C-alpha cells in the first residue's frame, strides 16, 4: 500500500545518520556533509525550477536571491545578534521583497532582454557584495556565523544539520508540488506554454510570472540563510553566475519541470563530483560540456530519456 511505502521510506530517510554510521563507519562525517549539501542544493534547484520550468521565465537572478537571504541572515546573526528563528524569515522576507521590486520592471522585458536584465541584476548584486566592504566584509567574508538555535533546540551536530536539510527539502518539495498542481499549476503552465492564449483564457501572465518569480526568490533566500548557518562563513564568491549555470545543469540533467527529475539532477550534480573527487575546474569543464550536450540532444534530461518511449515526451524547449 502506498502509504505504507511512504512511511517506510520516510523512516529510512530519517534514520540515515544511524544507517551510515553502521554501514560506513569512519565515513559518517563526509557522507552526511554530502547529503546536507544535496538537500540544500535540491531545495534551491526546486525553487529555480519553479521559475524556469513551470512558469517558463528564464531568470538568471537566482544567485542574487540566494545571496540576499544568505547575507541578511549572516549579518543579522553576527552583527545584530538575531536568533536564527528571526534571521531566517528576515532572509526570506528580504529576498521576496527584492524579487517583487526587481520583477516589476524585469517582466516588462521580453525574452532575451529579460534574461539579460536578470543577469545584469545578479552581476550588480555580486559587485555590491564584493565591494561594499564596510557592510558585507567583501572578500574578507562574514565569519563566525552561529549555529542555529531555536529555543532549547541547538542544531550543531552533523546529524542535526542533516535532519534540518531533510526537513527543508521535504517542505520545499511539498510547496513545489502544491504550487505546480491544481488551478495555480495550470495557470503557470498556461503562461509558460502559450502566453498569448493564456491571456485569451483570462489568465494574467504578469501576475503569474511575478508570483512564481517572488516565491522562487523567497525560497532561494531561505536556502541561503540555512546554508550560511551550516557553513558558518559567507563570501561574495557564492553568488556568481556559475551558480546559475550549476542550477541549470541540475534541472536540465534530471528533467526540467518534474519534482523527481530535479531532485535526481541535484543529487547527481552534488554527490557525483564528491564521489569522483574532481578538481573544481575539471568539474566545471565537465559540467559545461554535459550541459551543452544535454541541452542540445535531450532538453528533458534524464526524465525525458526515460519517458522517451511514450508517445509524446514533454518538450519544454523544443523547436
Amino acid at each position, binding site marked *: 500500500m502506498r502509504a505504507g511505502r511512504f512511511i517506510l521510506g520516510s523512516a529510512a530517510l530519517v534514520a540515515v545518520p544511524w544507517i551510515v554510521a553502521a554501514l560506513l563507519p569512519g565515513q559518517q562525517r563526509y557522507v552526511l556533509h554530502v547529503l546536507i549539501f544535496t538537500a540544500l542544493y535540491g531545495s534551491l534547484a526546486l525553487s529555480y525550477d519553479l521559475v524556469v520550468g513551470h512558469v517558463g521565465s528564464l531568470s538568471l537572478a537566482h544567485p542574487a536571491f540566494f545571496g540576499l537571504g544568505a547575507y541578511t541572515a549572516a549579518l543579522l546573526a553576527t552583527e545584530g545578534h538575531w536568533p536564527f528563528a528571526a534571521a531566517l524569515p528576515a532572509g526570506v522576507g528580504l529576498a521576496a521583497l527584492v524579487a517583487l521590486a526587481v520583477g516589476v520592471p524585469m517582466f516588462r522585458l521580453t525574452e532575451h532582454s529579460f534574461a539579460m536584465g536578470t543577469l545584469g541584476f545578479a552581476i550588480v548584486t555580486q559587485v555590491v557584495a564584493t565591494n561594499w566592504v564596510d557592510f558585507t566584509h567583501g572578500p574578507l567574508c562574514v565569519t563566525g556565523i552561529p549555529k542555529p538555535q531555536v529555543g532549547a533546540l541547538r542544531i550543531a551536530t552533523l546529524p542535526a544539520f542533516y535532519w534540518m536539510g531533510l526537513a527543508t527539502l521535504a517542505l520545499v518539495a511539498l510547496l513545489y508540488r502544491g504550487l505546480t498542481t*491544481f*488551478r495555480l499549476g*495550470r*495557470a503557470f*503552465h*498556461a503562461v509558460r*506554454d*502559450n502566453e*498569448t*492564449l*493564456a*491571456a*485569451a*483564457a*483570462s*489568465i*494574467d*501572465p504578469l501576475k503569474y510570472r511575478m508570483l512564481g518569480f517572488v516565491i522562487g526568490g523567497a525560497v532561494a533566500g531561505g536556502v541561503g540563510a540555512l546554508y550560511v548557518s551550516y557553513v558558518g562563513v559567507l563570501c561574495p564568491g557564492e553568488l556568481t553566475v556559475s551558480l546559475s549555470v550549476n542550477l541549470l545543469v541540475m534541472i536540465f540533467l534530471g528533467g526540467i519541470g518534474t519534482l523527481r527529475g530535479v531532485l535526481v539532477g541535484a543529487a547527481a550534480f552534488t554527490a557525483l563530483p564528491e564521489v569522483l573527487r574532481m578538481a573544481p575546474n575539471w568539474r566545471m569543464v565537465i559540467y559545461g560540456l554535459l550541459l551543452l550536450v544535454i541541452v542540445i540532444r535531450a532538453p528533458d534530461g534524464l526524465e525525458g530519456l526515460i519517458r522517451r518511449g511514450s*508517445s*509524446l515526451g*514533454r518538450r519544454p524547449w523544443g523547436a
Partner: protein
Amino acid sequence: MALFETRGLTKRFLGVTAVDGVDLSVEAGELVSLIGPNGSGKTTLFNCVTGYLVPDEGRVTFRGRDVTGVAAHRIARLGVGRTFQLVSVFPRLSAIENLLTFLQQHQEESLVGRLVRAPRVRRLEAAAVERARSLLDSVGLAARADVPAGTLSYGQRKLLAFAAALMPDPELLLLDEPAAAINPTMIEQMKAQIRALHREGKTVLLVEHNMDVVMDISQRVIVLDHGQKIAEGPPEVVRRDPKVVEAYFGR
C-alpha cells in the same frame, strides 16, 4: 446601444498606419464579417480591440464600457472570446484540459473553500467537465478528448481552439480566419458551428478571406483597405461596390 464599438481607432507601426481612424459597431446578436486585402489591418484591429495592442488613437467600447488599452486577460474576462490567425492551443494539455483552462479563472472560489474541497467546488468542477465534453462533442472531437492537443491535426486544433473560446460562454466572439487552411468538409463544419452560435444569440465578428464563407453566412460585411473602412453593408451590396472591387483587384 451597440454591444461593441470602435471610434476613430488608429494604430501605427514604424511609420506605417495599419489601422486608420476606423469606426465600426456591432449590435448584439449580429453576425458580421470583416474583410479586406492582405495587409488591410484586419488582424491589427482584432489585436487592438482584444487588448494585445494598445491603439495610438481612438476608443474601443464593449457593452458601453471603455476598454481602450485594457489588457488582454481583462477583456477576455469581460466576456470577449477570440481565436487566432495562427491556430493556438496548449500543446501539452489534452483537448479537454485545454477547454478547462479557459474556464478556470471564471470559477470563483475562495482559497479556503478550495483547500477544504467543499462539495460546491466539486460540483463546479464536475459541471466544467460536463460542459467541456459537450462542447468537444459539438465540434466532433469527443473521441479525442484525452489526447494531447499538440498531436491533433491542424483542422482539429482549429476546432479545438474554437471550442475553447466558447468555454466561458462569451457574449462576443472574434474569429480570426476560421476557414483558413482547412479542407472543404471542415469549412462546412465551421460554417455550421458559426451559424449555430448566431442562432443561439451570440454576437460574432469574423475576419475572413474566403469569400464563399463570408457571403454565405454574414448578415453584414465591413471592408477595410489600407487600414481604412471603405464599405459596409449586406454581403450582396458590398460585393458589387466598385471601391471594394478596386481594392481587391485594382492594384
